[in-house]
């Protein structure tokens, strides 16, 4: 029987306190996609919030940007176990987008060009926690990364940050979106490892 002295072969590397459990730091930006990449020109792009009355609140590309684009530096955690730290984004705060939208509903379904959906509680989109991102890493968002605009909800797993965002629909209940129907967690907190059902 061997006897191993603790610390004999060097200290185990301390876990990075900014990495949630089960995550690995990457420097590149992996592309994940569940289907064909939509090609949407900003001239044709439109963003809509539909409230419970069925009324649509619409923004063109220029109208969205006119709400004010801000710099955002956040950590990103993908459910497939990679994380990026201090990622530089630019986008429009959803607080500004929701400024003139009245709704009693507490949940939101994000809809994408191409048909993707994901559900998020409204409170997770407000108070400086979420953006409609139009730029990343110092340039416009490439289509493969969700351009021209994607949702950015960095405190939840990255599948909640829907690429190719086209609209939000207010919901009375927390109905599941695409991955949430097919096995992924309804909420998706990376610090609690809420990956699957």
């Amino acid at each position, binding site marked *: 029987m061997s006897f191993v002295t603790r610390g004999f072969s060097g200290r185990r590397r301390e876990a990075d306190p900014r990495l949630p459990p089960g995550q690995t730091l990457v420097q590149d930006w992996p592309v994940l996609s569940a289907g064909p990449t939509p090609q949407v020109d900003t001239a044709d792009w439109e963003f809509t919030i539909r409230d419970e009355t069925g009324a649509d609140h619409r923004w063109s590309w220029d109208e969205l940007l006119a709400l004010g684009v801000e710099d955002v530096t956040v950590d990103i955690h993908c459910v497939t176990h990679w994380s990026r730290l201090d990622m530089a984004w630019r986008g429009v705060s959803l607080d500004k987008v929701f400024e003139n939208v009245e709704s009693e509903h507490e949940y939101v379904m994000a809809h994408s060009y191409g048909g993707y959906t994901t559900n998020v509680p409204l409170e997770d989109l407000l108070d400086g926690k979420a953006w409609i991102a139009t730029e990343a890493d110092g340039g416009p968002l490439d289509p493969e990364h969700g351009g021209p605009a994607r949702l950015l909800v960095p405190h939840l797993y990255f599948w909640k940050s829907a690429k190719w965002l086209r609209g939000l629909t207010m919901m009375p209940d927390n109905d599941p979106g695409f*991955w949430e129907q097919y096995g992924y967690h309804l909420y998706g907190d990376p610090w609690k490892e809420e*990956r699957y059902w």
Partner: protein
Amino acid sequence: MTHHLDGNVLAGALSEVFRSDVTAARGRCGGCGRTAPIAEAMVWTDAPGLVARCASCDRVLATVVDTGDRVILSLAGLSAVELRR
């Protein structure tokens, strides 16, 4: 550039669930009605799960999510699957 593979890539994951080779089975798309071997589906693998789409209309036919200790399978986009005895 995202890319997809054909339905044969589903064989491993589905062999855990079905007795016969499901990629050889014919499936009917619940959207456009195309009936074709599952092997002809378009499968996106660079995703949180496998996503099989109809080669005609892009509709999601099937998904496979591997949680490590479980496999969560959806065939919700197929209106029927024909398995040969």
